């Protein structure tokens, strides 16, 4: 089968978004809508550009795109209102007999 390659290995923009990095981490952030003030601190610091303050009807709070979140915990650590908690993914919750 013939594949296509670009001249000189030139790449099109934003192809990285095909790569879902959401399964990298052991933890994931959970936003407490009540505590979130939509200050966007988490949004500014997220290295994976996957937490954004969005409007949900009347409400406005940070929402995580779990397709990409690597679970680093920066959003939780920088949140001035302690509105983001890191939780262990279920898959890592196992008991050692």
């Amino acid at each position: 089968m013939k594949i296509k390659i670009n001249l000189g290995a030139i790449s099109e923009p934003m192809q990285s978004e095909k790569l879902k990095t959401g399964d990298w981490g052991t933890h994931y952030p959970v936003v407490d809508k009540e505590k979130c003030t939509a200050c966007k601190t988490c949004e500014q610091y997220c290295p994976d550009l996957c937490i954004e303050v969005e409007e949900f009807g009347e409400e406005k709070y940070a929402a995580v795109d779990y397709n990409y979140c690597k679970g680093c915990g920066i959003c939780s650590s920088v949140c001035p209102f302690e509105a983001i908690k890191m939780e262990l993914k279920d898959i890592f919750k196992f008991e050692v007999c």
Partner: protein
Amino acid sequence: MKYFGSGHGACPGCGLPIAVKTVLNALDGKVFAVNSTGCLEIISSQYGKNAWNVPYIHSLFENPAAVAAGVEAALKALKRKDEGYVVVFAGDGATADIGIGTLSGAFDRNHDILYICLDNEAYQNTGHQQSGLTPPGESTTTTPAGKVLPGKIGGKKDMISIAVAHGIPYVASSSVGYVADIRRKVKKAVKFEGAKYIQIHSPCVTGWGIDGEMSIKVARLAVETALYPLVEYEYGKLTSVRKIKERKPVEEYLKQQRRFRHLFKHPKGKEMIEMLQKFADENAEKYGLDLKKDEE
């Protein structure tokens, strides 16, 4: 509008994408990005997995300043300068070591470029080897702490002074710990015609030996201990510094990171910590970092 995509390959908690997206956003994506070989290049520019949403070029490890100068010259000759700012993203090794020749040339000719040095204080992409910007006392794989040696001996190359000495219009240091500071400095820098240098302290979770969630806290500690002063020079004159309210002892910063942990038990560790504290004290003195009571 996103100018840097999700799905890039940075380690969880890496400082580099934070710096990059802040710079790109500050300039509304009007950027020609020039990248040296290194961490950022590897995490963002694999063929077919490109994370950039601005025109981007990577050539070699040691030539981003020259490549940027070429891009700028082309835009000038082709009357396309309005299209965007030429911005280099280079690591500390590419900047202070292997690429300092081309960097000096570009500064000397005063090309209209913004050179961002992403300083994670070692060759982290290849597994944490020391660079000219590795601080003394750090244990790297090429300056390991051993029975005799306490990690890197020597100093951290003062790239800020080297940049200032070239007589370029704008030089600053910043930190991933303070994105608003990065944003402000980038916006200010591009107002100057000529070469601009901003060195951004950027935590490396694997090299520094910290948890991802600690990145920002550790980056801020570097500033709060005066080990990484945030300063600004315009036309060779110091114009602003980020003041520190209550300067913390360097141990607070050092003990958080695996790369310095040996200093707390090594026979020469105490001596190294004292040296780092002296370095911080000198920074505080030189830049007037300590917020005096009456300044509060």
